[in-house]
Each structure stands twice: as C-alpha cells, then as structure tokens.
C-alpha cells in the first residue's frame, strides 16, 4: 500500500511522467470501453468525404466519408494490444534468458551470449518478414510472438550484464561472506535491482513493438484490420497521393497524431517509472513534502539523531 502511494506521489511530482501517465490512461480507457460507447459506422458516404472537424465528426471524415474519431477509438484496442502483448513476450523472453546466462554462467552463458550476439548483429526486420511469410500470421497472438522472438536480444544482454555486475557488488559479497542461501541472494538482493529497468524497458518496448507491427501490417504480413491506425494511415496516404491531394492531408494527420501522442506518452511514462521504482530517485519529493508541512519538527528530529550518533 505504502509502495503504491509513494509511486503515485513521485509520478505526480514528475510533471512529464504524470502527463504521460494521464494520456496513457486515457488511451487504455479508450481501448477498453471506447468501442462500447462509440459506434463504428464503416460505410461509404462520398458526399461527406474529407470533411474538417465538426460537432458531428470531431476529427473529420476520411476519403470515403467515414468518421475518423470512430476509427481511432476502435483502432486503439488492437494497437495497444499488439504493442503490450509483444512487449510482454519480449520482456519475459529477454529477462529469462538474460538472467539464466547471468546466474548460471559457464556453457549456458556462452551459448546464450552467442545467440544474443547473432541476433544483435543481424537486421531483424527482414527476418521478421520471412518468419511472417513462412508462418502466416493469423491472429494478434501470433503477431506478438513474431515480434518478440527476435527482439529480446538487447534486453537479455543488458539483464545479463546488470546481473553480472550486481553479483560482484559489495552488498552481494557480504551475503556470500555470511553464507546466506543462493535463493535469498538471487530473489531478494539481485532481482529487485533489475526490476525498475525491466518496467521501463517494458514500456519502451511497447513503443518499438507498435512501430514494427505497423511495418508488418503495411506490407500485408499481418491480419488486416481496417481501423488499425497504421492501415488508416496507409489508406489515407495512398488516397492523398502523399500530400498531392491537399484535402487528404488532414486525413493523414489524424492517425499520425494518434501515434505520436501514444508513443510520446509511453516515453514520458517510462522515464517517470524509472524514478518511481528507485528509492534513491524518489526520495527528494518526500523530503520536500515533509519540509513544507513541519520544518521545525523535522529539523529537531534530524539534529537529535545525528547528535546522538556522532559521539
């Protein structure tokens, strides 16, 4: 409870992260209950094509006269779902393999490190394309697996390196001197120090997973969802002749803005997450709060404490 409270306190004080969190929350809300509230009407209404924002169409209409706001709302779910799912798979894979390499060492470490090296040095996107061709992607789950299976290498590499350096840190050495059991050292001492990294990586990975999924979708390697933002963007761009048709520019801008907003909020949120999960970084806000409330008491206490200990 205390931890959750201090998490939100820190988030609240970090304005950037707070804004990111709010936007992200809004997107999540949109993904979960948006389609229930906003109806989707995908017909053809050429009379109303390329309309600007109005009360009836808050974000205007596209090249066949469909409401863009409706499409954005309905597209949120698949965009976020693919991103989060792929990122989750990536983090699980990367963390598991990185931790295994870091803790086990020896031949296990050598093999995993070699695989990591190969994955890092080859371009991933073409391989993802090939995989998508060989194993046709039929649903979102498959897409997430395709996205995750090749992109865990950096994460695993960093997790492994972090664990290797933590293993040599003094506070772990002390546990070894005391002869504390291995499970304590791994789960209580080392892994908590990796968690804040994992959390912010998870959020940032969502970002790159969304970007890659867009690529795959545009090339037709993933199931076609007309309301997915990337498909919207693709269609709008095709119809607007890449901007030659000036009326279509606004149509292009709407999904683009949605992407930018989402990715920005993810990055902001990830930055704040790092701070919120690290007791050292989140400290300063607590101090300020206390100081504002009762400076005198705080000062006396501190003085008393330090006085006693120095003698």
């Amino acid at each position: 409870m205390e931890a959750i409270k201090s998490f939100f306190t820190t988030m609240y004080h970090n304005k950037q992260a707070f804004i990111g969190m709010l936007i992200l929350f809004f997107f999540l809300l949109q993904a979960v209950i948006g389609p229930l509230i906003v109806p989707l009407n995908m017909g053809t209404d050429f009379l109303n094509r390329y309309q600007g924002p109005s009360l009836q169409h808050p974000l205007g209409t596209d090249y066949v006269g469909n409401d863009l706001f409706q499409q954005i709302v309905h597209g949120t779910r698949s965009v976020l779902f693919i991103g989060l799912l792929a990122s989750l798979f990536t983090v699980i894979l990367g963390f598991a393999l990185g931790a295994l390499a870091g803790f086990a060492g020896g031949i296990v470490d050598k093999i995993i490190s070699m695989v990591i090296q190969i994955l890092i040095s080859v371009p991933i996107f073409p391989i993802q394309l090939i995989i998508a061709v060989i194993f046709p992607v039929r649903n979102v789950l498959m897409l997430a697996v395709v996205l995750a299976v090749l992109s865990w290498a950096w994460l695993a590499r960093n997790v492994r390196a972090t664990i290797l350096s933590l293993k040599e840190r003094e506070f772990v050495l002390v546990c070894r001197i005391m002869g504390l059991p291995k499970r304590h050292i791994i789960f209580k001492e080392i892994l908590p120090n990796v968690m804040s990294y994992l959390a912010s990586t998870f959020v940032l990975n969502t970002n790159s997973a969304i970007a890659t999924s867009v690529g795959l979708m545009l090339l037709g390697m993933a199931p076609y969802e007309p309301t997915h933002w990337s498909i919207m963007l693709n269609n709008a761009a095709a119809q607007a002749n890449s901007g030659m048709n000036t009326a279509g520019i606004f149509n292009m801008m709407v999904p683009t803005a949605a992407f930018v907003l989402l990715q920005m909020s993810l990055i902001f949120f990830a930055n704040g997450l790092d701070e919120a999960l690290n007791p050292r970084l989140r400290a300063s806000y607590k101090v300020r709060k206390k100081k504002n409330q009762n400076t005198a008491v705080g000062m006396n206490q501190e003085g008393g404490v330090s006085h006693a200990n120095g003698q």
Partner: protein
Amino acid sequence: MSDPGNSRDPIVTLHDLEMNFYKSRGLLKRPLAMNALHHINLTIHKGEIIVVVGESGCGKTTLANVIAGLLKPTGGTYEFKGHEIRSMSREQKNDYHNSIQMIQQDSYAALNPMRTMIKSLGDPMLLKKFADKSNLYEKVREILGTVDLTPADNFINKYPHQLSGGQRQRILIARALSMNPELILADEPVSMIDVSLRVSILNLLARLNQERNIAVLYITHDLATARYVGKSGRIVVMYLGQVVETGNVQGVLANPRHPYLQALLSAVPIPDPSLSRKRKKLTLTGADLPSISNMPSGCRFHTRCRYCKEICKEEPPKPVSRGSSMVACHRVDELPEFELFTGEKKHA
C-alpha cells in the same frame, strides 16, 4: 609469523598462502599469471587487533577477500580454527560464515539500494536463525543501539541513500555484529567518511574489540589511523603481495627497519605545521609501483629501494627476526638508523 608469546586460540591461520589471478591473453597465448599474494604467513588470534598497511595494489584487499572466503587461494593452506578451509563439515562452514564478517570501504555500495535497513539487517538474522519474526525488531534495535544509532526507529525504515556516510558505516558494523562474529575484517572503513567523524568509527571498532573480544583486522593505507587503531596490536606491512615487516604496532612504527616502511612513514603528513616541516624528505628512487604482471625479480622492492645491492635483485629475502619484529630485507642490519625528523629526534 605468529607471536610466540601468544597462546590464545587462533581463529585464522594462513600458511605460505599464494593467490594468483589469471588474465586471458587471447586464444593462443597462455593466460598471464599475476601474483597478488605471495608466501603469506599470518595467524589471527581471538580478540586481537591486527593492522595491515600498504599502498593500493599491495594485496591487502585481496588478503581480506581470501580470509572472508570470497577468493579461493591458489596455494598454501588456510585453516579456520584448526580446520582446513576446503574440507570443513557443514557445521564448521556455518560457524566460519558467522565468525568472520567484513566491513567495506564504500558503505553505499555495501548496502542494497532497494532495501530498507530493517531488511538489510533483519533478513540475514532471520535466515541464520539469530532472530525469529517475533523478536526481530527488538534484536535489530538492540544492535543499532550497540553502534550508537539511537533512537533506532529513526533508522529502521530508511533506505541507504537517506543516511549519511558515517551512519551507513555504523549500519555495516551493526550488520557484521548481528552474526556474532569473532573476527571483523575492516577494509579501509573510514577512508570515505569525513575527517571530523573518522575517529568515532575507529573508536567504535576499538570498543567492540575490548568489550566483546572481537578480533579486528584493520586494513588501511593510512599509517596514522593504523597507529591509532592498532595501539597494542600487531602491524603487517605489505608490499606487492608480500609481507615486508611485521611486529607490534608501537615497536614497528617507533623503529621501522624495512626501507619501504621507512619511506612510507616519512611520507605521512603530520597534522602539526612546525613538526611536519622538519620531516626528512622521501627517499625512494621511483614514486610509482611496478606493474603486478611484471613482478621484479629478487626482492620486490628493489626497483624503488635506495639501499638496493646486487643480492637484492637476485634473491628474494627471507623474513628474519629483529627485536620484536620480523623483517624481510637482505640489508636489515646494514641500514642507518631511521629518523623521522632532521635535527633533534622528537619521537614519542
């Protein structure tokens, strides 16, 4: 080099201990051996204070790591209470892990940044059954009281970064004490603390030594604090992985015999302007330590020694007894008497 007059129980006995590190030089070349400790003979008895002095790179921290069990010696024997370390029973191993504790230099790195003090201190006590859930807080408070962190409730739920360097150092001592140790290895425990607070930590260590009969191995490069902590204890002077001089602190510092120790002594700044300007100047032929991967032949100190002769370059000296100390120098009897100051001798 055990003190013959000392019949107390030995906790740690090192005999001809060797420690080599190997550095890989690629696939085809043989790994490079670097000798960090060479022929170390040392016995630590119950309740004793031993100070280990030397420059960085002399192997003093490696020695502490070997004694703590973090490094496995590559040669010689290491006995804990008479049992060879490699062939101890489960029970003896447990006793070993409890009996020897370490206090590190960097108190911030020595505490898990994600864990509060009650967890850092309490978990080991629970795991090693020094406390159970019902009396954990009570025991932690008691131990914090021992190291003068009172009132304990102000520290129990703090994270390491919320404490000052001096307070963290006391936490480290508290953590070591919680295991009921017989020997505390203190590796430069005050070098990162403000000068104004250093002696309070040193006084605490001395008090624990006296009140609880805990042996202390104090590792430092600072001869002034070595003298302060050591008082009636023993001193071990190390140079490039070897012991060059050992004996009781007062005797060795008042009458240093090895040229290295003499140079070290004359380099220590003295907090008294009039005395420190009468100091004799440093007398080494080179200020820099030779590389550990390219160890000098013969006496390892010969490259910097102004008394160096042919024999020093060829043959490693054997430690010989002079007065109350043991000295490893070929020319120990030929050296001129050491004076810290020019003019009249102001030595206490």
